[in-house]
């Protein structure tokens, strides 16, 4: 009776895995619609299989040992109370996990470099840029090339890479559209880059994944991937029919509170820069007194001792790019 639960456990787990593959629609992480999410799904499956190769035999072995060596009258199994060491056996089970981990490690490292979020997606099409700002408790999206802005809503053309530049107005959040690919933090005072792409048209769920205060649960948004024509006509429509986002409008938007979907035909020039740099040039920062967007970006290296990595140097470049984008937007 007792070892049943032990045997039941792997069965339960397999059952779960089965259900997962069975009704894929709701398991959005395992039903990606873009290249990044696709690779991450592959990696999830590969690592699960590698682990299972060790885990499942271990669970079976556990059940057998617990069953066979239970104490009962007339038991035939042997009993060796002083047997406590066997070099051969111990070397075996030091090696099994070591080998598995080496294999997994090699795969992980390769994917880590391949899927570095700031790495551009290879495509013959020019990426579009969307600037993402997490506010208390809503998402502001700006299309610098198109000059429009949205709240809690994104429309993108399918098959075109999207370059997300991300920052936060206050507390940290995390931008996550599971069907396109993994998340990245939005942090105030710095800009991150994340490339994603939708291969199929459709409507995808997105949310803020990192807790940032009271109405955190309301930080959901929809990502609609459409044809390029539809995308462009939508842009035109927004430009023609929606109100403009003024600086006052933005100040109102950043007040704490949740929000419905909103569309804006334009937004104040350099707004993303201002948000990302607001604390660098703040009253408190004694030694930061640069005016140009690029200078604070360079200063940032001093204030972030850990910034000597690829991502951050990349980020500085983005800052430069972004300034240019802004000018073009004007």
């Amino acid at each position, binding site marked *: 009776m007792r070892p049943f639960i032990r045997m039941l456990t792997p069965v339960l787990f397999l059952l779960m895995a089965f259900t997962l593959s069975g009704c894929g629609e709701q398991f959005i992480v395992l039903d990606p619609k873009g290249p990044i999410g696709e690779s991450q799904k592959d990696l999830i499956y590969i690592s699960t299989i590698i682990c299972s190769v060790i885990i499942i035999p271990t669970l079976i072995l*556990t059940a057998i040992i617990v069953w066979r060596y239970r104490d009962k009258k007339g038991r035939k199994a042997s009993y060796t109370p002083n047997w406590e060491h066997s070099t051969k056996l111990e070397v075996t089970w030091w090696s099994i996990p*070591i080998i598995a981990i080496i294999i997994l490690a090699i795969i*992980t490292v390769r994917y880590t470099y391949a899927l570095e979020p700031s790495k551009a997606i290879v495509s013959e099409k020019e990426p579009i840029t969307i600037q993402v700002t997490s506010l208390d408790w809503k998402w502001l999206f700006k299309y610098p090339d198109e000059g429009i802005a949205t709240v809690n809503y994104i429309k993108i053309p399918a098959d075109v890479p999207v370059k997300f530049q991300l920052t936060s107005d206050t507390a940290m959040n995390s931008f996550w559209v599971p069907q396109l690919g993994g998340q990245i933090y939005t942090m105030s005072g710095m800009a991150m880059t994340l490339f994603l792409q939708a291969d199929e048209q459709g409507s995808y769920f997105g949310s803020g*994944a990192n*807790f940032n205060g009271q109405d955190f649960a309301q930080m959901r948004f929809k990502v609609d991937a459409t044809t390029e024509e539809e995308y462009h006509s939508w842009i035109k429509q927004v430009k023609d029919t929606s109100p403009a986002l003024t600086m006052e409008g933005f100040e109102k938007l950043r007040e704490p509170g949740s929000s419905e979907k909103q569309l804006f035909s334009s937004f104040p020039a350099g707004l993303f820069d201002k948000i990302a740099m607001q604390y660098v040039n703040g009253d408190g920062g004694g030694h930061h007194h640069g005016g140009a967007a690029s200078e604070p970006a360079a200063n940032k290296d001093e204030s972030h001792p850990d910034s000597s990595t690829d991502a951050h140097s990349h*980020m500085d470049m983005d800052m430069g790019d972004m300034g240019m984008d802004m000018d073009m937007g004007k």
Partner: protein
Amino acid sequence: MLDKIKDFASEFFVTGDPLILGAQVSIGLSVVAIIFTLTFFKKWRWLWTEWLTTVDHKKIGIMYVIASLLMLFRGGVDALLMRVQLAAPQLDFLQAEHYNQIFTTHGVIMILFMAMPLMFGLFNLVVPLQIGARDVAFPFLNSLSFWMFFFGAMLFNVSFIIGGSPDAGWLAYPPLSELSGSPGLGQDFYIWGIQISGIGSLATGINFVVTILKMRAPGMKLMKMPMFVWSVLSSCITIMFAFPILTVTLFLLFIDRYLGAHFFTLDGAGNPMMYINLIWMWGHPEVYIIVLPAFGIFSEVVSTFSKKKLFGYKSMVFALMSISFLSFFTWAHHFFTMGSGANVNAFFALTTMLIAIPTGVKVFNWLFTMFRGRITFTTPMMWAVAFIPCFVIGGMTGVLLSVAPADFQFHNSYFLIAHFHQVIIGGVVFGFFAGLYYWWPKVFGFRLHEGLGKWAFWFWNIGFYVCFMPQYALGLMGMTRRVNTYDFDMGWQPLNVVSTVGGFLMGIAFLFQVWQIAHSIRFYKKEQNGDAWDGRTLEWSIPSPAPLYNFARLPQVTDQDDWWEEKQRIARGEPVKPLTPLEPIHMPKNSGIPFIMSLCWFTAGFGFVWDWLWMAIPGLIGVAICMLVRSFSYDTDYYISVQEIERTEAALRGSK
């Protein structure tokens, strides 16, 4: 005047929530009831001399266990409230603000005020007995550690009814936890509650390292120590290096909030990400701190109930120590998505995977301890056996999470929630329960009812899988942690309902445990023999409960499982070790200073929370006075005479 008092009271007490009002009333009533009972039965003096001032490691251990079980109750109620809220989409059972407070306190309480004290309780109850010592190295400090923990926990818990609970998550990431994000008092209660109890934890870590290194019975070489003692040593060494980081980090956050500094603020060139790094430099070792002793407990239990020597002793020791070392090099895997770049992520992914190796080896060693053993399924053993599949699966999902690029999809989702609950409940809680059931007869001198214990066991286990397996799936469905509400169209409800049912099954399991303890006390049957389970290590060679001085004669250790070998020799009719003559035993005297000093810390902390310097400063002065008084008191020890030892031993061991 009346209005002023009213204003103050409405600010001072948390108002406006019927749940909290209910709790306030019931807390008030229980305090009155406790005071009445103590007064009516004239137990105040008994409470003071026997418990509040005790330096006896066994009594301190019991107090730790009681406190942690109370905290388990509170944290569990928090968990069930959350599960109710999530059982249906867009439910209005808990408002966002209240929900945020509840998940914050649930996390803090379960890790810092439930798992940690339960672990320290077991350290106290068992380690001195297992190494053949009469107390820990620093009994006064031990008492101080307990009271620092206790008053820290009280300070944290009082925020529930006074001032308002913290609501920035259990690790309180800035800038949300800075004044800009959390202007309320809850965050200050968080800082001071954890800070005060954290100092106690650090002291306990030091105390047990010294105890284990210096107080072992003659002949007990390091490589002859019971595996639990090894696990305590590795855990305490980790505490010594990890807890100072916590203290400094929280202190910097305090300076930010209290004095307007800019360590982790947004403006003034503060860097919130530095906090996240620092807190996880403590936070990751912390989870190994609590799980390592559980590994030690499983080693003892599996070996005892398989009637077999622990397989691969040296491997086990090496694995424990390497886990403790590696635990300091994995912290950044908690934020692969911070954008530190591929080099950093690759490094921390690999170090995280490395930990899986020694952990996996330990599982095989436990399995092969049972292999060719003679396994009896008592309650402690059932917990140990249930632990293996649970921890193996939890460990596997941990390895999945360590695959950095895949973690971009798992991070902050319910997949992560399911993972760490599986390793913490399946590893730590199951382990501590195994330990508690195993050593209960030794500590209290009576057994717990096995039948009720088995009911509790099955409810816990089934409840666990029903609760947390669906959460893996929910994570893959895109459900993020800490959401208090979700939409109908996500399809998250069915699995959330299942999960809630599982949560309540575990709640029922807890009630069975309470019933089990109550039943066993009601039908109290004294243990006739100190060796309840046919044990292997020194603690089973003395009567249950152990006398004040533990060992009338210090044991002379010759073997790894010394008591087992001794019993084998007796059975074979070989000569047993000769008895040395009794000598007077040197013991520490009780002291009220730890209690008073911790109370002063509580006062100071409470003062700082409210920014009442008139309260904080006297509190700190009180702390200083306590230190001075202790420094100049010389009458701190005494001797138990040989006659008294003889009397006690004769009473405890009967005619023997």
